[in-house]
């Protein structure tokens, strides 16, 4: 292949295979034992630690860090998993800079928090490498629960239910379990097939059957599940993508699909990418798409966000990461039209002011040369089974994930209340499982 960064159009192999492999290496390499020891020693073991409060799953962070410092990463991992069974993935993908590490008192003191995320990864990696599964199941209850969606919420729910002795069947429409962990996260954040390895490790508790390629609505119905199981948990995520609402929309690609394809690609050098890539949006999906386009060899990548930088869903850390990868971020501009005949040629944007009355075009426009344009402007609920109350575009839940239908719980991105984070989904799945367990036990 003789493509280069300058080859026009959407083509594969813009960089040598080795360069692409290097680009997609672990973005935050793991701490070695000594580094972990030094990093762990920085923890003050705060009273009623703010980091615990900031963690959606309320991991006892000072305790697990102290367990690392004293040379027992296995015990540290157990502390993490007791609260967050996907602690390994969360260690990689959590925006710690806006959660635990933002709350760390050393962030307040010196602008350099304890490296909680990396320490969490150290502990969970060490414990997983040691093999085995740290949880045993309670005596079988004879109860059966269906979990729809093998993403973070569904898996966390399934694991906790299995631990309590229930039989769980997990349905997922995709060919592999893992949900966004497997399909929706930048490749360099979770290298080496970690998402699947973690799912396998999680399923080792036993009592969980995973049926992939089975979509609710198409292959099974909620009514059917309700009839066959004692309880149902829905962790179906957000299946739809928001529209640009601009002329020529059909020429734009879906950023979520791009990330999924990239994650599933056996050979990244065979994955086509544009020379001039424009990503519309301001969240993590936009950053992951833009950065990975650059890493594949796109010459120019621009993120265009309709509001100011401070309103971007992507954290400052993520924005810096994009900038460091050579991505240009343009703010206060909304897409007006995608131009091109059969393929994108350029994207037209209108500058906009963000006022009390909403976004208002200033009248000034500009065009960006593009042969590939991605929309990353959010996802929406799709394929909600009939009969479920929906509110604000999400399945309505009360308390620990109780939906409007008896015997049906929900959690994760398909419900409101979270911030569409893996860690929130895990917390919701876990809490719903406890509620389901309590309900089944009371029956």
């Amino acid at each position, binding site marked *: 292949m003789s493509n280069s960064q300058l080859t026009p159009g959407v083509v594969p192999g813009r960089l040598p295979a080795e360069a692409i492999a290097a680009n997609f290496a672990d973005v935050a390499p793991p701490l070695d034992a*000594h580094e972990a020891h030094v990093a762990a020693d920085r923890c*003050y073991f*705060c*009273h009623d630690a703010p980091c615990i409060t900031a963690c959606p799953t309320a991991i006892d962070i000072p305790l697990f860090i102290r367990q690392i410092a004293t040379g027992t990463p296995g015990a540290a991992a157990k502390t993490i998993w007791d609260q967050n069974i996907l602690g390994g993935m969360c260690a990689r993908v959590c925006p710690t800079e806006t959660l635990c590490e933002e709350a760390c008192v050393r962030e*307040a*003191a010196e602008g350099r928090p304890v490296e909680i995320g990396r320490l969490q990864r150290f502990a969970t990696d060490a414990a997983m490498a040691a093999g085995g599964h740290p949880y045993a199941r309670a005596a079988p209850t004879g109860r059966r629960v269906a979990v729809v969606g093998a993403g973070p919420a569904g898996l966390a729910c399934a694991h906790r239910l299995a631990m309590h002795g229930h039989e769980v069947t997990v349905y997922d429409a995709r060919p592999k379990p893992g949900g966004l962990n497997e399909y929706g996260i930048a490749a360099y954040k979770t290298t080496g097939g970690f998402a699947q390895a973690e799912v396998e490790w999680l399923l080792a508790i036993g009592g969980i059957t995973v049926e992939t390629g089975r979509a609710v609505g198409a292959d099974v119905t909620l009514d059917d599940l309700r009839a066959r199981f004692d309880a149902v948990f829905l962790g179906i995520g957000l299946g739809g993508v928001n529209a640009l609402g601009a002329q020529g929309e059909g020429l734009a690609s879906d950023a979520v699909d791009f990330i999924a394809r990239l994650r599933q690609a056996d050979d990244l050098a065979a994955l086509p990418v544009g020379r001039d890539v424009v990503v519309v949006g301001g969240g993590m999906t936009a950053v992951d798409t833009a950065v990975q386009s650059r890493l594949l060899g796109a010459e120019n990548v621009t993120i265009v966000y309709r509001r100011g930088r401070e309103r971007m869903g992507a954290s400052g850390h993520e924005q810096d990461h994009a900038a460091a990868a050579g991505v240009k971020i343009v703010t206060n501009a909304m897409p007006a039209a995608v131009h091109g005949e059969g393929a994108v040629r350029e994207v037209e944007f209108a500058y906009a002011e963000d006022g009390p009355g909403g976004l208002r075009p200033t009248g000034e426009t500009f065009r960006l040369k593009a042969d590939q344009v991605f929309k990353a402007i959010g996802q929406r609920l799709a394929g909600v089974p009939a009969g479920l109350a929906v509110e604000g575009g999400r399945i309505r839940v009360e308390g620990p994930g109780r939906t409007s239908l008896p015997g049906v719980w929900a959690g994760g991105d398909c419900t409101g209340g979270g911030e569409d984070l893996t860690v929130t989904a895990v917390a919701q799945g876990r809490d719903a499982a406890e509620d389901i367990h309590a309900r089944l036990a009371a029956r």
Partner: protein
Amino acid sequence: MASLAADFVGIKSPNPFWLASAPPTDKEYNVVRAFRAGWGGVVWKTLGAEGPPIVNVNGPRYGVVWGPDRRVLGLNNIELITDRPLEVNLREIKQVKRDWPDRAMVVSLMVPCDEESWKAILARVEDTGADGVELNFGCPHGMSERGMGSAVGQVPEYIEMVTRWCKMHSRMPVIVKLTPNITDIRWAARAARRGGADAVSLINTINSITAVDLDRFAPEPMIDGKGTHGGYCGPAVKPIALNMVAEIARDAETRGLPVSGIGGVTTWRDAAEFMALGAGNVQVCTAAMTYGFRIVQEMISGLSQYLDARGMGLSDLVGRAVPNVTDWQYLNLSYITKARIDQDLCISCGRCYAACEDTSHQAIWMKPGRIFEVNDAECVACNLCVDVCPVADCITMERLAPGTVDPRTGRVVPEDYANWTTHPNNPMARAAE
């Protein structure tokens, strides 16, 4: 820059930083390197009596206690006295003293506890032109099993006896190196003085096991599955050494006896502290063994700067803190303080709260928003919150003004100094005069 030139019992050196008798001073090569680096003097590693050289173990000689990032906090050794032939050491000592006449050259000695052995070696050391001798009554491992080292230092009568022999058979200044492995350092120091010692040096190492291997169930350092107690030194032992130096400095029978301070001296500040408590100079080992000889440059610049900033000479520093070392019974009970938390500096970690609430006097409130405040009605001014606070100067102890009421006791803070000796609760109290 302030002159650091020091005169210790007549032994002159360009600065008060000597290397202690230990592996760094075992041979000419090391000592010359040390002098090039700027050390004011050395105490040559302990020589033994004529005869077959000492044998050392061939496994680890050192055990360690690490702080974070493998910082050496304490070091333990089971090395014996020099294992090189006596005549080689004596030849090298003579040569180095000739080449470096301005540096202090003291020779450490440890021979069997009979007068002839001491007499014999003293004559040979004197012949080297060395400035003085240091009697090793301190090493707590190995040699002590053979009736030397700390086996002598633990018996005041032996200290006195051997010191007297040495003064009798030599014109050189005699420094007696004391072991801390005793109940009261003053007994050993008094014995040395009675024997005619020109000075004492302390502390030698503290008997120790640095760790236990939890797989092999054996102490560290471990030789083929077994271990033995060794001598502990380094930053961890400094507080013990400081107290022993101060005890000698303020004891009626040993007051004025020159002291060479040893024990965890790592920086100029450590050296200054020893000297303030009465040490005329300091000896260093672990810091050099950890970082190399170049550390003396920091000690020189740091101590000079400190003295310059206060317009003091080196001799002004020596013993300056001694009058302020007292017995508990004389501490001022009218001095009443309360902890104060600077809310601007507080990072809300809550360590002060956990420490006070769990282990002390429940004198810190945790208020909404992670605000920590001191409850004066409970605060006994123990200082634990200050000690565990990770932010310097965030928590301080503020004195209550005389005449105000201490909310804890409900009593007025007295104007005048008052101590336990006259306290009404003291059954032995004397009437105030």
